[in-house]
Every structure is written in structure tokens, then in C-alpha cells.
């Protein structure tokens, strides 16, 4: 994609500029992936309490039928993404790297929606509470990858009034283009979704933040939002991790989320553009979240593509549809290369938060061992949270977790910028994760 002529506005300090490689798929219109023969639908696709299965083996289900019931407020129901028969209940590989409970549905090929879906063209006249219930019932979670149940974000405590909603279309993660394509292809729906969000939160200011390296998306969204003066499309600087909530809020609203705080502390709610589209579908057509845009990319697949794929589609199927792995494919990542998670098996399914599958060939995989920290300070410059990752690394390496905590370990959101720039190849993110785990263990 051509470098942009769109003028980007404010940004944060720090950050890195990895090669984005988005040209692999950015111009490719989305294709609908085949309905998976067997959809593996994990019962936990979000942050919070896992759902409880409400189906039994052999049960016939329709597309959109609820198969996992919420087990708490911070939770989101799970729905069947295909129509067919439940053939297995058990632990299956999950992108987090472990086996967790999932429902396997064998498709009957009919792809029938469940009956009783209520279409509602006058959705904007519904009350905020009704809208929120629709969102909650549709099992919508943050689709940028955080997978935080959306209705929870939409229920801020009274003492924290919200006055700004931001849609996150920054897509700063290299390689991924699913949000980009979504913005081009479903711009109207996204704007409508934003309006619904604004209505739920009773907010009059809505922004759509897009990195300025996607001028076509900016144009499409601006066009879609033309009739809605309350919605503004906001180009932001191209820099990783511009799409992180706190960084985006800084760039667009000019507000700084306090350390350890949440966006709502400064009156902001951020949602992914994909989430907005899902919300629109849920509210307008009553359809639960059963499919999403997934980019399958990287030089490890033969034909990188953008897919509209059902939740539960195994990675192996999407990769096959993208021409299959190349001979040198060495690493399959769920998500982008910065924050995504590498997979040991292709049996893992697409879940609600899967924005892409990146396959790296051997020569792009860094297998060097790490060396001692030479204190070059690159990580300090790169850290968007203004932490000192070098010190975090040194402390954690030696097992001084408490000292790491004193160096603001808990403010790290593991964007990987430090590890990306480290000349000594030190695995800071790995250590931060480890330290957080150890500290949590100590607490219990």
C-alpha cells in the first residue's frame, strides 16, 4: 500500500516500526471460507468465566443456537456457528496452547439459522438497556484480540461517566488486514454499530481511529459517516502499538489513562471495528456472533487471503484454503507476529478473537538465543508505557519479582516493542508473563 497522504494527528511516545507486510493481503477482497465439516467451538473464547455447555452429544443444533451458557457477569455465551449435530464434548487444543473444553459440531451442510431471529430496522429507538441485552445475548466480545465481553465494557459504574466512544481501526499489528478489509467492505455497518454503542452509553462523540497507512479505509469510513456529524474518522500515526487502547485514547481524545487504570477512568470506551459490526448484526438482525474476518497471511502460506470464517473453523482448513503451507513454513501464529501466539498444532479453531493467522517461513523466524543486556536503552525508547524493560528483564531473569514490580511490571501490557528492538534478543515479554504469573501465585 502506498504511503499515506492523510495527515495523522497526535500520538504517544515510544513505539516501534516493524515492517508491516500488509501488502500481502490488504488489496484482496474478503472471501467466504467454506463451512467447516466439523466446527470446534471452545466454551471459553473470552476473558472471564468459561461458559457451561448446554448441549449433549448427538443433539441437533442450528446455526446461532446457544450452546454455552454464561456463568457470571464477566462472561459471554457461545453459539453454534454451523447447523448440524454435536459429535463431541471434550478438551481440545486452544490457541492459548492448552486443551480446553469445547463443543464439536458436525455440519449438516444446510447452514440453517436458528428460528426466531428478530429483525429490527428501528433498532436505534430501543432503550440502552434493551440494546445492551441484545449485545450480551449475542455473545459479543472484543474482537481485536482482547476478547473482553463487550456488554461489561458497556456497563461502567455510575461514578465514571463516559463521554467518548472510540472505534479501533488502527490495526497496528503487522501483516493483519482483517479490520482493514472490514472497514472497506462493511463501512456502513461499522458506523451503525458505533451509533448503537453511543446510544447505549448515551455519548455524543464517536471516533473511528485508523492508522494513516490505510487511506482507502479512511476514505470509505469517512464516506460512510458522512451523514452522521457525531461520528468522526480520525487518522492516527503509523506506529506499533498505536492500536493499544491507552495509546489510541491518548492519540484521539488526548487523555492519558492512569497507570493501572481503565479507559473508563477517563470517560472513554474503546471497541474494535469488528465488534461494532458484530453489534450491528446482533441488534439489527438478532444474529449472534458466529463468524468473523480472519486474515491468513505470511510468507509461509502460498496464497495469503482474507476470509470471512465461522467460529470453530480449524486453522488447518483456512490454511488449506489459502493454498496451504509452503515448504519452509515454520511458525503458525494465531494473530499477528507482535502479540500473537505461536501454535504447535493446526487443529486449533478460529475463535471470536482470532483476527488472523500468520505463517512465517523458516528464514523469518528468530531462533537465536539471547545474550546479556548491554543496556543500550532501545527498549526504554520503544516502550509505549515508558517502562524500563531492560531492568524488568534483568530483575526477572534473576528471579527478583518484587523488584520488577517496583519497576512497574504490572503496567506492561506485553506489546512486545521492547523484545522487537532488543539487539541482545532478550525475551522480555516472556519474562514479564512469567513474573506476572509468579507474583499472582505468591498472592494466592
Amino acid at each position, binding site marked *: 500500500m502506498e504511503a499515506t497522504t492523510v495527515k495523522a494527528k497526535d500520538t504517544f511516545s515510544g513505539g*516501534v516500526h516493524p515492517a508491516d507486510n500488509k501488502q500481502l493481503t490488504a488489496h484482496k477482497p474478503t472471501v467466504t471460507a467454506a463451512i467447516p465439516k466439523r466446527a470446534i467451538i471452545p466454551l471459553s473464547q473470552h476473558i472471564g468465566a468459561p461458559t457451561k455447555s448446554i448441549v449433549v452429544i448427538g443433539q441437533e443444533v442450528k446455526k446461532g443456537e446457544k450452546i454455552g451458557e454464561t456463568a457470571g457477569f464477566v462472561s459471554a455465551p457461545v453459539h453454534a456457528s454451523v447447523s448440524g449435530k454435536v459429535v463431541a464434548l471434550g478438551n481440545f487444543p486452544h490457541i492459548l496452547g492448552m486443551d480446553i473444553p469445547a463443543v464439536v459440531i458436525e455440519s449438516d451442510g444446510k447452514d440453517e439459522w436458528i428460528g426466531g431471529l428478530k429483525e429490527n430496522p428501528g433498532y436505534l429507538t430501543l432503550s440502552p438497556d434493551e440494546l445492551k441485552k441484545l449485545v450480551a445475548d449475542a455473545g459479543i466480545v472484543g474482537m481485536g484480540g482482547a476478547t473482553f465481553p463487550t456488554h461489561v465494557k458497556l456497563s461502567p459504574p455510575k461514578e465514571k461517566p463516559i463521554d467518548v466512544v472510540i472505534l479501533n481501526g488502527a490495526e497496528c499489528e503487522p501483516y493483519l488486514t482483517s479490520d482493514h478489509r472490514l472497514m472497506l467492505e462493511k463501512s456502513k455497518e461499522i458506523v451503525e454499530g458505533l451509533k448503537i454503542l453511543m446510544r447505549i452509553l448515551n455519548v455524543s462523540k464517536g471516533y473511528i481511529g485508523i492508522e494513516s497507512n490505510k487511506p482507502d479505509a479512511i476514505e470509505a469510513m469517512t464516506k460512510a459517516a458522512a451523514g452522521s456529524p457525531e461520528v468522526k474518522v480520525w487518522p492516527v500515526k503509523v506506529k506499533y502499538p498505536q492500536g493499544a487502547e491507552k495509546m489510541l485514547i491518548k492519540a484521539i481524545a488526548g487523555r492519558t489513562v492512569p*497507570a493501572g487504570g481503565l479507559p473508563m477512568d477517563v470517560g472513554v470506551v474503546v471497541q474494535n471495528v469488528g465488534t461494532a459490526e458484530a453489534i450491528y448484526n446482533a441488534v439489527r438482525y438478532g444474529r449472534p456472533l458466529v463468524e468473523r474476518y480472519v486474515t491468513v497471511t505470511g510468507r509461509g502460506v502460498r496464497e495469503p487471503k482474507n476470509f470471512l470464517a465461522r467460529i470453530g473453523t480449524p486453522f488447518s482448513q483456512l490454511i488449506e484454503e489459502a493454498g496451504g503451507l509452503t515448504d519452509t513454513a*515454520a511458525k503458525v501464529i494465531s494473530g499477528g507476529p507482535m502479540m*500473537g501466539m505461536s501454535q504447535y498444532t493446526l487443529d486449533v479453531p478460529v475463535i471470536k478473537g482470532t483476527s488472523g493467522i500468520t505463517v512465517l517461513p523458516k528464514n523469518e*523466524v528468530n531462533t537465536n538465543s539471547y545474550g546479556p543486556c*548491554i543496556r543500550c536503552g532501545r527498549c526504554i525508547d520503544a516502550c*509505549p508505557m515508558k517502562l524500563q524493560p531492560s531492568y524488568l528483564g534483568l530483575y526477572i531473569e534473576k528471579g527478583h519479582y518484587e523488584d520488577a514490580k517496583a519497576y512497574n511490571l504490572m503496567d506492561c501490557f506485553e506489546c512486545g516493542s521492547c523484545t522487537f*528492538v532488543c539487539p541482545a534478543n532478550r525475551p522480555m515479554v*516472556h519474562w514479564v508473563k512469567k513474573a506476572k504469573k509468579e507474583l499472582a501465585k505468591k498472592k494466592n
Partner: protein
Amino acid sequence: MEAPALVQAKEQPKLIVSIGPHMHDEESTAKIMWTVSGALIPASLMSVYYFGMPAVMVILVCLVTSLLAEAGMQWLLKKPITLSDGSAFLTGLLLALNLPANAPLYIPFVGSVVAIMIAKHLFGGLGYNIFNPALVGRAFVLVSFAKIMTTFVAPVTTFMALDAKTTATPLVILKEEGIARLLEIYHTKAALYQDLFVGNRAGSLGETSVAALLLGAAFLLMKRYITWHVPIPFIATVGILTWIFGGHDGLMTGDPLLHMMSGGLILGAFFMATDYVTGPSVRSAQIVFGICAGALTVLIRLKGGYPEGVMFAILLMNCFAPLLDRAMRSRVFGKAEAKGVKK
């Protein structure tokens, strides 16, 4: 419950699993070290041009001893031997550039051994040393062999110069006999500046050619291997303070240009004060580091017993680097506001 193999890819490829990020910048420690070493090549060549064979010998002994000491120490400590990372090579080269050409060869030997074994490996090796190893090596031999280390030879133009004439460095002449004597030797200020710039003067190998050093420094700045935060405040402070206090006829009569181009300032400011390991890593602390090092240099040059203060200034600031880093830690994103909220 066992997971039945319901879905199976045609063949499961062997996949590499690791924790992200899965992309990496092209930089590496070795690349940085070798590039910095490379940036010192012009200065090394100039020193060979001016001091001939003895300079070659000093450089060679430093490099060989440093590498051997590194390998030996790592072998002794049962650590992997990492000569290829270039850090020992760089230390050796920097040390060589800090020695006079006429130094008997045991001096580069002792200096390198001290630099690598004591200043570097006793403290845990690369990344952990508190003081710049090359400067420790130099300070050690300076104190141990004070006389030899403060005797310099004039540049020669024949390669195999064996009995070069000893002479004082411009800074020593300036300190002990005043600017008038310097002008007597060089006739005009312009000629003096020119000789300083090109490197036609007595001094340590790397002290001589400002032009060659600046060339290397510009390359490193361009590659962003070093930043302006340390060297520019360092040199500027020296310039300003020597202008104010450096003159014999009262305040504001000093010659900043002369001071900025003399001694090891350019070498020290761009290549040694910028050492990642022994300097502060927070940007604001780096500026303070540079200013303080500059002030200490001037203090030692004008008031101290030694004619040249760059080495001591950097070593002294090395002591303070952890303190500076600690005191000037950047404020975490959103930290100040967090305090406000609590109130």
C-alpha cells in the same frame, strides 16, 4: 477426557513454538559492536599514518591480548566463549587508541588484561561492568607507568620510525606554558586548529585526528547506534566552560575550539561516554551525564594535576550512572495522573 482426533490436518508440520513477539529488529549486539569498531577504523588508520609501525604494534597487542583475555576468562569461568560478539575487540581497539604510540608493548598487554579480566569479567562480563573497561585499562596503566604514559612522541612521516622525538601534547603545553607558547610552535591559530583537526600532533593514537573521529561518529549517529544525548552536551559543556574559565586574561577569554579539539575529548565523548553498558540508559539522565562529564573534564584540565581529564571524567561519571538512572527514571505512562486520581 481424551481428545478424539476428529479433525486432522493432512500432515502436521513441525512448528516452532515460542512466546511473542515473533518479529525482530535486524539489530544484534554483535552488529552494534562490530559497527562501532568499524567506525573507529578511520581514526586507527590516521594514527598509523602519523605514528607508523609502533602504532600498528600497540593496536595489534591490544587486540590480540583482549581477545585472548576474553576467551581465557570465559573458559576459566566456564561460560560460552563469545569472541564473535565483538565486545572484546572493541575494548581492545578503544584501549589502543587511548595509549601513546611509543608505549612499550607490555603496557597495552597489561592494560588489556586489566580491562577485560578485572573491569569486565569480574563484574559478570558483557553488560554488567560498571566502568568502561578500556578506560579502566588505560587508567590502570597510566597510574602504574605514569612516566611512560605521559611521554608522547611527535608524529612522524616515515613508517618505521624508531627514535621519534618526544614532545608534549598541545594540552600539556597549554597548561604548563600557556597559549603563547603554543602559538609560537604553530605560528598561527589557523595552523594550530588545522593540525589539531587533521591530527598532526602528539598524543594518544586516537586523540590525534579529530577529522577521522568525527567521520566515524557521524556514521554511528546516522546509524542511530549512538545518539546526541551524551556527546553533544559533553562537548558543548567543555566548550562553554573553557571559554568562560579557560583564559589567562579573566573570564570569557578561553579558547573553546582549542579545548574541544584537544586531548581525548572527541574520542571520549563519541566513543566511550556513549558506551551503553556503563552510561545511563534513560535519555534525560544521559544529558546530565554528558554535562557533568564535560564539567569534570574542564575542572581537571584547568585545575587538576593531570593535563587531560576526559578519561577521569568519564570514569567518575560511570560511578554516578546507576544513581542518575535511578533518580531520573522516566515516569510511567499515566503514572502522574494516577496519583491525582487517588487524591
